[in-house]
């Protein structure tokens, strides 16, 4: 074939001149005939660009060579991860000539990261993206209700997860009402349907009144669990007003849904344990509250009773008349005191009067009469005669003696 390719121009006459289109066609045909229809190549992405048409253009290169590449929009949409510059990939497609630009290029039908799996890479990429947006931050985690009575379960009717979840809830908390939403949990479109179901129950929650929802499925391969690593599900969980518990796969399986959910259950069975309290413990707590209230109320009543008893034991309550009696006694005392003082006061006055009386008596001129003295008065005038001149011969005088006795006599000489 190669021989014929290079022989061909030589076999023609020297005068044969080829147009660009002709020579390009010859090259194109030669390449198509030489290379297999499908080849798998490996290289590092550089100059990655997605055109507004959705088609992607990039180069794949190694240390010594560069190959321009194209990936059509329809093929690109099937990729689970996002091609990035510098990423080493393995890609399958074919090589063809693109005549308008005079270049040959690789048409990539599919690609996967070299080394790690495509899903693993996609997982890491979405995880980093959502983490950077803050979707996993604790401040966005809604607290789970302590006592949920209405619980939504979003999973597949056909999976084992539904029974695992309902059994574990009813074992612990048989008073709950469960609301089951049947959604596919794997395969094409599962992520969109799960996201739509989460939005739907939120929209209807004024009627449904769900306290919490559990979203999950049983274990499986990374491909099986993939729906829970899709951005649509992550955003729906993040935007849910109802707290969400994720319950996907086994202990070791971590999905994007687990990171963004308000709580992560390592298995569907554990979701029940996380979602609801154990009714036995709640009943025991009620029992304890009952006992504590009774014990403490009784001791409080007793304490108050004791205080009352102490108060009632006071003298005032034993003999309420005592207050009156006490006052009466006080009054009596005051009265007695007053009487005594009055007596003393009057006795003092009496004594003084008597003293004065005695003094007065002593001063009474007539008292000297008792001692043998007498008073001489002029009978005519009644004046006491103190001087000899006050009396004349032939005057009558009166001599007063004690006991009101008197003598009349005539002056015969002086």
């Amino acid at each position, binding site marked *: 074939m190669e021989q014929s390719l290079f022989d061909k121009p030589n076999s023609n006459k020297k005068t044969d001149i080829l147009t660009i289109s002709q020579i390009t066609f010859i090259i194109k045909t030669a390449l198509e005939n030489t290379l297999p229809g499908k080849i798998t190549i490996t290289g590092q992405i550089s100059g990655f660009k997605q055109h507004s048409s959705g088609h992607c253009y990039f180069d794949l290169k190694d240390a010594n060579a560069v190959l321009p590449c194209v990936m059509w929009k329809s093929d690109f949409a099937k990729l689970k991860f996002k091609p990035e510059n510098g990423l080493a990939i393995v890609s399958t497609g074919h090589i063809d000539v693109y005549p308008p630009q005079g270049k040959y290029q690789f048409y990539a039908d599919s690609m996967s990261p070299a080394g790690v799996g495509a899903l693993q890479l996609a997982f890491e990429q979405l995880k980093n993206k959502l983490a950077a947006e803050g979707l996993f931050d604790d401040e966005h985690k809604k607290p789970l209700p302590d006592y949920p009575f209405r619980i939504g379960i979003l999973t597949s009717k056909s999976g084992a997860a539904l029974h695992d979840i309902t059994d574990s809830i009813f074992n612990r908390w048989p008073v709950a009402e469960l609301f089951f939403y049947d959604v596919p949990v794997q395969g094409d479109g599962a992520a969109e349907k799960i996201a739509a*179901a989460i939005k739907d129950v939120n929209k209807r929650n004024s009627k449904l009144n769900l306290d919490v929802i559990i979203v999950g499925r049983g274990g499986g391969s990374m491909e099986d669990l993939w729906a829970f690593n899709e951005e649509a599900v992550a955003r729906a969980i993040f935007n849910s007003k109802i707290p969400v518990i994720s319950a996907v796969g086994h202990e070791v399986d971590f999905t994007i849904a687990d990171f963004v959910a308000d709580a992560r259950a390592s298995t569907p069975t554990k979701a029940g344990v996380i979602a609801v309290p154990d009714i036995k413990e709640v*009943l025991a707590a*009620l029992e304890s509250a009952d006992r504590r*209230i009774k014990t403490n109320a009784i001791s409080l009543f007793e304490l*108050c009773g004791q205080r009352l008893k102490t108060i009632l034991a006071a003298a005032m309550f034993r003999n309420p008349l005592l207050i009156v009696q006490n006052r009466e006694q006080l009054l009596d005392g005051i009265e007695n005191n007053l009487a005594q003082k009055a007596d003393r006061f009057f006795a003092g006055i009496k004594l003084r009067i008597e003293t004065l009386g005695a003094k007065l008596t002593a001063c009474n001129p007539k008292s000297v009469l008792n001692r043998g003295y007498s008073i001489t008065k002029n009978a005519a005038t009644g004046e006491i005669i103190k001087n000899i001149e006050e009396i004349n011969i032939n005057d009558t005088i009166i001599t007063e003696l004690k006991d009101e006795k008197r003598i009349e006599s005539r002056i015969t000489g002086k």
Partner: protein
Amino acid sequence: MAEKDIDINGLSFEQAIKKLTDIVGKIENGSISLEQSISQYEQGMSLIKHCRGILQKAEKKIEEISKK
């Protein structure tokens, strides 16, 4: 008293447990008067009855709510 009973029956389980916890605390630390303690005691007993009543209604109900 009848009014209080109606109030309690209208409480959610969560609210009732919260109120009950509150009452146990108040009665236990003895910071309330005798008169209050009697009314709190009665309220506590009603709350416990209310909660137990709720927990007795175990129906294990599952309803499907998916949109078809």
